[in-house]
C-alpha cells in the first residue's frame, strides 16, 4: 500500500490491455465557452433519470412550480428526486419517450415555463465543514444528484459507502470522441470541482484523491492542477489517450493498478469514482443550495452549425438543443445521445435531457460512416486485441449467435463493458456489442424465468400439498361425522326398518315411497287443503314411530317427534317428505348399517325438527342450492336450463306451489346427487345442514335487488359466453 501510494504520487500510470484510437474530433466543440440557451417553451422532466426507483410525485397537473422546487420526493432505496428546471405551470404528467436506448415511455412531468425563471427558496451552506456526515449526505440526496458520467448511479449511495476508501478517483478522462462537456466544465469551473472533491473528502476521508485526465486536454489539466494546489491530498494524473480509459474499471487499473473483481464494485478494493460533472453538482448543491437542474451538454457533429457546449436545463428537448445550435439534417440522419462509441440513437428528438446526457451527436455520413453489411468472421481476433477486459469477443460472438448462454457466461460475457472497441476494429463489421447486449438481456431473462419457474414449482407443490391435506381433512371429517352423528343415522336406519316392518303389519298401507308420492300429488291437487292430509301423514308417522319405538323401546324420541309434527303447518309435511326420501336413500346406501341398530338413537329427529322450523323458503333455497350444485356438476349446455329454473323456483317463494317445486327439486337433487362429489352424498343430516347453511346465504341474495342485478348480469354474461363459444365452434 505504501509502495503503491509512493508510485502513484510519483506519477506512475499503469496500463490496461487493448484499447483503440478512434479519431478524437474534440476540437469541433471545445473552442468556445459553455453557452447559455434561451429558455425552451417546454420541459419534459422524466421521473426516473438514474439507476434506482422513481421518487413519489409531489405535484399535480395545472400546478405552478418554482425553479428548483422538488417535483418528487425519494421513497424507497435508491430513489432520487427530480426538480423543476424553471418556474412555470405543469401542463401534463404522462409517460413520454425516455432518454434510453429503448425510448420506452417513462412517466414525465411536462412543464410550460413562464419565462420568469423564479427560484424557490434556497438554503446554501457557507461552512460545509460544520455539517455532519448525514446532513451532507441528505443535501446530496435531496438535490437529486446521480452520476453524470453515464450510468446514473445515485451519488448519495456511493458517498455513504461503509467500506473504507483508499483512493477517491475523479473521472475527468472523457475518452469518448467528440465529447468535451467535462473538459470545458473543468476549464471554467475548476475551483468549484475541487470544492466538490473536498466535500467528498469530508465524507469519505480517502488516503488520496486522484484526478485522471487524458493527455489530450492540456488546458483542463493545467487549470485543475492549479486549482488543486492548496490541497496536497489531491493529485492530477495525466493518462494517455486510449479509448476506453474513461471506463471505471479501466481508469482504476490505470491509476491504481487495482482491478475491480468481477461482479464487484470499486469500493470492494477501496476505490471510489465520481465524474467531474457530479462533483460540480455536489458543490452547487452544498454551497449554493441548488438542486441538480441543469448540466453541460456537448452538441456536436458535422450537421451542427455551431458545435459546442451548452448549459441545458434537465428536460430540455433535444430538438431545442439542435435548433439553438443550428442543425441541417442529412438523409438517414442519426441523432446520438452520448458519444460515438457507446451512445445510443434516438428515435425522436422530442426527448428531454436527463442527468446522464453528456452529448448530443448529430453526425453526417462522412465522419461516422453508416455500418456496412455484416460479413463472416475471419477469426482475425482484432477484437480480442482491442478488448480492454481481455475477453474473447470473437468466441462470444459465435456463442451469442448460437445462443449458447452457458458458454457465454463461462467466457465472462458479463464482464463486457460494452465499450464497442471490438466492433470498432472488426474488419467484418460484425455488430458485436449488439450481439452481446441481446445475449445479456436473454440471459437475464432466462435467469428471471428460472427463478420464477422455481417459485411456481414451489407454489404448485405447496398447493398440491394443501389440497391433499384438505382432502384428507375432509375424509377425516366424514369419518368423524358418522361417528358423531351415528345416532342420527341409526335412527334413520331404525325408521327405515320400522317402515319395512310396518309394511307387512299394515297390509293395505303403501310403501313409504308410494305414500310420499301420493302425498305430493295430494298436495298438488288439494292445494290449500293440506292440513287434514298432513295430520294423516303425521298420524301415519306417529304410528310408525311408535312401532319403531316399541320395536326399539325408545319412547322419548318418538314422543318428541309426534309432538312437533302436528304443531307444524303443512310445510313440515314437505320437510318430512324430504326427510323420508332421504331416509330411504340413506337406507339403500347403508344397508350395512344394520349392525348399528343396537346403538342408542339419541337426537335422531334433530334435523327433522330443525328443518320444519325454517319457513317454506328453506326448501326452495335448498332446491336452488342443489340446482346450482347440479349446474356446477353438469356441462355448459345445461346452464341455460338451470338458469331458467332459477327464476321459477324464485318466484313461487310465497306461492302454494312451493311443494311442487320442492318435489321437482328433490327429484333433481337425487339425480344430481349421483353425479355430485362424495361430500354431498354421504348422509342425510349433512345434506340438510348444507341446505340450511346455503339458505342463510341465498335468501338475502334473492331479497337484495343489487345482488339480483349482479346475478342477472352474470347470467347474461354466461349466456353471452356460451353463444360466443357456439359461434366459435361453428366458425
Amino acid at each position, binding site marked *: 500500500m505504501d509502495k503503491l501510494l509512493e508510485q502513484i504520487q510519483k506519477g506512475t500510470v499503469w496500463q490496461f490491455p487493448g484499447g483503440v484510437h478512434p479519431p478524437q474530433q474534440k476540437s469541433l466543440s471545445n473552442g468556445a465557452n459553455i453557452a447559455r440557451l434561451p429558455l425552451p417553451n417546454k420541459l419534459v422532466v422524466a421521473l426516473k433519470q438514474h439507476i434506482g426507483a422513481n421518487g413519489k410525485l409531489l405535484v399535480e397537473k395545472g400546478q405552478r412550480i418554482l425553479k428548483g422546487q422538488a417535483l418528487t420526493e425519494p421513497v424507497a432505496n435508491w430513489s432520487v428526486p427530480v426538480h423543476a428546471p424553471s418556474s412555470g405551470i405543469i401542463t401534463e404528467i404522462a409517460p413520454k419517450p425516455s432518454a434510453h436506448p429503448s425510448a420506452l415511455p417513462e412517466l414525465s412531468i411536462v412543464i410550460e415555463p413562464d419565462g420568469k425563471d423564479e427560484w424557490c427558496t434556497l438554503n446554501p451552506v457557507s461552512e460545509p465543514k460544520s455539517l455532519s456526515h448525514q446532513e451532507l449526505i441528505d443535501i446530496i440526496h435531496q438535490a437529486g444528484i446521480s452520476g453524470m458520467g453515464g450510468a446514473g448511479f445515485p451519488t448519495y449511495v456511493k458517498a455513504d459507502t461503509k467500506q473504507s476508501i483508499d483512493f477517491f478517483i475523479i473521472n475527468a478522462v472523457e475518452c469518448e470522441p467528440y465529447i468535451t462537456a467535462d473538459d470545458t466544465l473543468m476549464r471554467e469551473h475548476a475551483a468549484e470541482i475541487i470544492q466538490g472533491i473536498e466535500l467528498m473528502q469530508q465524507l469519505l476521508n480517502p488516503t488520496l484523491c486522484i484526478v485522471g485526465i487524458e493527455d489530450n486536454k492540456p488546458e483542463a489539466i493545467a487549470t485543475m492542477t492549479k486549482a488543486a494546489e492548496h490541497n496536497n491530498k489531491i493529485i492530477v494524473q495525466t493518462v494517455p489517450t486510449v479509448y476506453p480509459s474513461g471506463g471505471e474499471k479501466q481508469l482504476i487499473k490505470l491509476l491504481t493498478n487495482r482491478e475491480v473483481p468481477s461482479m464487484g464494485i470499486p469500493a470492494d478494493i477501496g476505490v471510489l469514482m465520481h465524474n467531474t460533472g457530479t462533483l460540480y453538482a455536489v458543490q452547487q448543491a452544498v454551497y449554493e443550495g441548488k438542486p441538480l437542474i441543469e448540466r453541460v451538454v456537448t452538441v456536436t457533429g458535422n450537421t451542427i452549425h455551431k458545435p459546442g457546449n451548452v448549459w441545458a436545463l434537465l428536460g430540455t428537448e433535444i430538438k431545442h438543443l439542435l435548433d439553438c445550435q443550428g442543425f441541417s439534417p442529412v438523409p438517414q440522419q442519426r441523432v446520438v445521445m452520448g458519444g460515438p462509441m457507446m451512445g445510443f440513437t434516438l428515435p425522436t428528438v422530442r426527448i428531454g435531457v436527463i442527468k446522464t446526457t453528456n452529448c448530443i451527436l448529430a453526425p453526417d455520413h462522412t465522419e461516422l460512416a453508416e455500418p456496412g453489411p455484416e460479413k463472416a468472421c475471419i477469426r482475425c481476433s482484432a477484437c480480442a486485441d482491442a478488448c480492454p477486459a481481455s475477453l474473447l469477443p470473437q468466441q462470444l460472438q459465435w456463442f451469442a449467435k448460437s445462443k449458447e448462454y452457458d458458454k457465454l457466461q463461462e467466457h465472462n460475457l458479463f464482464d463486457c463493458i460494452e465499450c464497442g472497441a471490438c466492433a470498432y476494429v472488426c474488419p467484418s463489421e460484425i455488430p458485436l456489442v449488439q450481439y452481446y447486449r441481446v445475449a445479456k438481456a436473454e440471459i437475464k431473462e432466462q435467469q428471471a424465468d428460472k427463478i420464477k419457474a422455481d417459485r411456481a*414449482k414451489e407454489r*404448485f407443490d405447496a398447493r398440491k400439498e394443501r389440497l391433499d391435506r384438505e382432502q384428507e381433512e375432509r375424509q377425516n371429517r366424514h369419518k368423524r361425522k358418522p361417528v358423531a352423528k351415528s345416532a342420527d343415522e341409526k335412527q334413520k336406519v331404525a325408521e327405515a326398518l320400522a317402515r319395512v316392518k310396518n309394511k307387512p303389519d299394515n297390509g293395505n298401507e303403501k310403501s313409504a315411497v308410494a305414500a310420499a308420492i301420493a302425498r305430493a300429488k295430494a298436495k298438488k291437487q288439494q292445494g290449500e287443503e293440506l292440513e287434514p292430509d298432513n295430520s294423516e301423514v303425521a298420524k301415519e308417522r306417529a304410528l310408525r314411530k311408535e312401532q319403531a319405538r316399541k320395536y326399539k323401546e325408545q319412547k322419548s324420541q318418538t314422543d318428541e317427534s309426534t309432538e312437533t309434527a302436528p304443531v307444524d303447518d303443512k310445510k313440515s309435511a314437505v320437510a318430512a317428505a324430504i326427510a323420508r326420501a332421504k331416509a330411504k336413500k340413506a337406507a339403500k346406501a347403508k344397508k350395512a348399517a344394520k349392525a348399528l341398530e343396537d346403538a342408542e338413537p339419541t337426537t335422531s329427529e334433530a334435523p327433522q325438527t330443525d328443518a320444519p322450523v325454517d319457513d317454506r323458503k328453506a326448501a326452495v333455497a335448498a332446491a336452488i342450492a342443489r340446482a346450482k350444485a347440479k349446474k356446477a356438476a353438469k356441462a355448459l349446455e345445461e346452464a341455460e336450463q338451470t338458469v331458467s329454473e332459477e327464476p321459477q323456483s324464485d318466484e313461487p317463494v310465497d306461492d302454494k306451489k312451493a311443494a311442487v317445486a320442492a318435489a321437482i327439486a328433490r327429484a333433481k337433487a337425487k339425480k344430481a346427487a349421483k353425479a355430485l362429489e362424495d361430500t354431498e352424498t354421504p348422509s342425510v343430516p349433512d345434506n340438510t345442514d348444507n341446505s340450511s347453511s346455503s339458505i342463510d346465504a341465498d335468501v338475502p341474495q334473492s331479497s337484495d335487488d343489487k345482488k339480483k342485478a349482479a346475478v342477472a348480469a352474470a347470467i347474461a354474461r354466461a349466456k353471452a359466453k356460451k353463444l360466443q363459444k357456439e359461434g366459435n365452434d361453428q366458425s
Partner: protein
Amino acid sequence: MTLFYALIALGSLALVFGLILGFAAIRFRVESNPIVEQIDTILPQTQCGQCGYPGCRPYAEAIANGDEINKCPPGGEATMKKLAGLMGVDEKPLAGGEQAEPVKTVAYIREDECIGCTKCIQACPVDAILGATRQMHTVLIDECTGCDLCVEPCPVDCIDMLPVTETKQNWKWQLNAIPVTQID
C-alpha cells in the same frame, strides 16, 4: 480338433467378458432416475396442463417414459430443443402448431366485472389469485405463470391474458422495432 479349441477359447472369452459386463452393470448401476429431475428443470413450470398432464412434473415423468417432447406450448421451441438435447431424440415441431417463441402473458381480472365466484382461485395451479367468495379477485402478477387455466372456468369472462409489459429492464435491444419519427 482345432475347431473345438477355437470354440472353447472364444466361448470362455465370451463367458468371462459377459461376467465382467454383468458385474459392471450391477456394481456401477446409476441409482434412481435423475432424468425426471433434469427434465423437470427444463420445463417452464407454468403448470398449465397444456401437455395433457396435470402439471410439469407429471409431464417430465411422462417424457422420461418415452412421451413426445413437443407438447409444452409455454416452453416453446427453446424448451423442446433442450429436451431433445437431453433425451437424445430428434427435434420436432411443436404439437398443435404452437408458436416457436410463445408470448409471455399474465392473467388480469377486470375487477368490476368479477362476481367473486372463486372458480378461478380453484383453477389456479400456483395459488396466484387472491379473493374470497363474493369478494372480487385479483392476480398476483409476479406469481402468475400465464397458464390460462383460470380463463375457462370464469363464468363471466372477466379474465384476460395480457402480454407481459415491456420495461427497460426486460427490453431486448430490438432497435429496429423502435418506432422512429420524422425530425420535426
